[in-house]
């Protein structure tokens, strides 16, 4: 049923000039403050990259824009060359996003939550896929319990399971380690490996930089809503223009 063809050409192929993620001066304001103040970066296909930086650096905002959950106030963002504002429906087929909030329904059981997600993702094989996924994320024993009684870590595991039901070419993870125990963190690492082997591009925003760094190809540091530093392979800044933001000329018409 999924209409997507997963594009998994080797990351270094010269035939793949379109980056998995490209943003141009993308910015988002919330009321009086700029959560993201203009970031231009590009991520190569098939790479696993991390976004690091303190709280309020703009990591979550950037991921939410790429996931089509937030419109940028200024600038543009492309996923696989597709504009997230102009054609969000095409972007959604390619992206899987683990948000900070788990987006689960409290009064449904773990199985019901995943089966709902499977239907929404167009999986015809939900009956087999859901129990397998629950086992994958270590929730097989809690399959028929309502999510209301779950701990924060269990909710996160379930949200990770929902992510596994999708077949994305770009995976966006916002603090995947939050609320997880050592076992859960190891699960995240396993999943990261799995996506990488499947050829998907992965962007992870994380405080646990040390934990991710060994796995990641490259990294970018955000601070105060700006891209301040990139390193490693697969991710880079694309526009240095920072001094260009002159105030808008206010026009008085007749």
């Amino acid at each position: 049923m999924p209409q997507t063809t997963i594009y998994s050409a080797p990351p270094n192929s010269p035939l793949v000039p379109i980056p998995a993620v490209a943003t141009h001066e993308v910015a988002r304001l919330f009321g009086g403050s700029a959560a993201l103040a203009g970031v231009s970066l590009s991520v190569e296909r098939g790479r696993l990259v991390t976004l690091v930086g303190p709280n309020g650096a703009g990591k979550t905002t950037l991921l939410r824009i790429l996931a089509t959950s937030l419109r940028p106030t200024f600038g543009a963002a492309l996923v696989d060359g597709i504009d997230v504002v102009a054609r969000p429906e095409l972007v959604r087929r390619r992206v899987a996003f683990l948000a900070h909030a788990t987006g689960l329904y409290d009064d449904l059981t773990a199985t019901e939550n995943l089966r709902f997600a499977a239907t929404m993702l167009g999986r015809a094989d939900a009956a087999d896929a859901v129990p397998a996924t629950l086992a994958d994320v270590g929730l097989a024993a809690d399959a028929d319990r309502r999510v209301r009684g779950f701990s924060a870590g269990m909710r996160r595991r379930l949200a990770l399971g929902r992510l596994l039901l999708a077949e994305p070419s770009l995976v966006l993870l916002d603090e995947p380690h939050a609320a997880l125990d050592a076992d859960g963190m190891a699960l995240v690492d396993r999943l990261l490996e799995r996506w990488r082997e499947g050829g998907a591009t992965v962007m992870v925003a994380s405080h646990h930089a040390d934990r991710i760094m060994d796995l990641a190809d490259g990294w970018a540091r955000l601070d105060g809503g700006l891209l301040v530093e990139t390193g490693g392979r697969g991710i880079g800044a694309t526009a240095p223009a920072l001094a260009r933001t002159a105030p808008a000329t206010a026009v008085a018409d007749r």
Partner: protein
Amino acid sequence: MTGARADLAIAWAIARKDALSELRGRQAAGSTLFFAALVLLLFGFALGPDSRKLAEAAPGLLWLAIVFGGLLTVARLHQVETDDDALDQLARYPVDRRAIYLGKALAGLLAMAVLGGLLLPVVGIMYSVDLLAAGPGLLLTLLLGAIGFAAVGTLYAGVTVRMRAREVMLPLLMLPAIAPLLLAAVKATTAALAGDPLGEFWPWVQLLAGFDVIMLIAGGAGYGFLLEE
């Protein structure tokens, strides 16, 4: 491939999930019903003990109680989605926005139909109205009214869901918009209860159906824009 069938399956999945949540979180649904019944009781006090007058006013009171209860119902159905930012997640699924709207509206319709169905006997008993005589016509009116209310309510609940002061804004936007629905439903109910002596029942039912169709189209076209942030 089978786009329409897939969309219907999605809409059904959304409605089913909402219905399950409603059934399991019974307190909220139950208090809405209690509230609507209370409204009916207070109307009785407001209009005085004259039972003939009450029986005459019964269709109008029934529909006002449905409207008040329905306002709470459609707001609650969207509240389920905001508890854990599920609406955000719902909007990210690669599905047609119209299917999401249809699903939420279907859930609203189910809840409204149950509310109306349970209020009917209350009205029958409290205002001594003979419901059985008017059976099928009454049920048809109830169904069409519930569809229209769910169509508008789902859209406006989506408009106000992440807003400041949404408790005020939802009724404020919605009550004028459903005025024709209220009018037609009350008229059809009155006609059905009286055995339709003037042949007025069908025109009003047609008007209700027209309202339902127009609002479903407007809702399907508009709902997708509400999921943006």
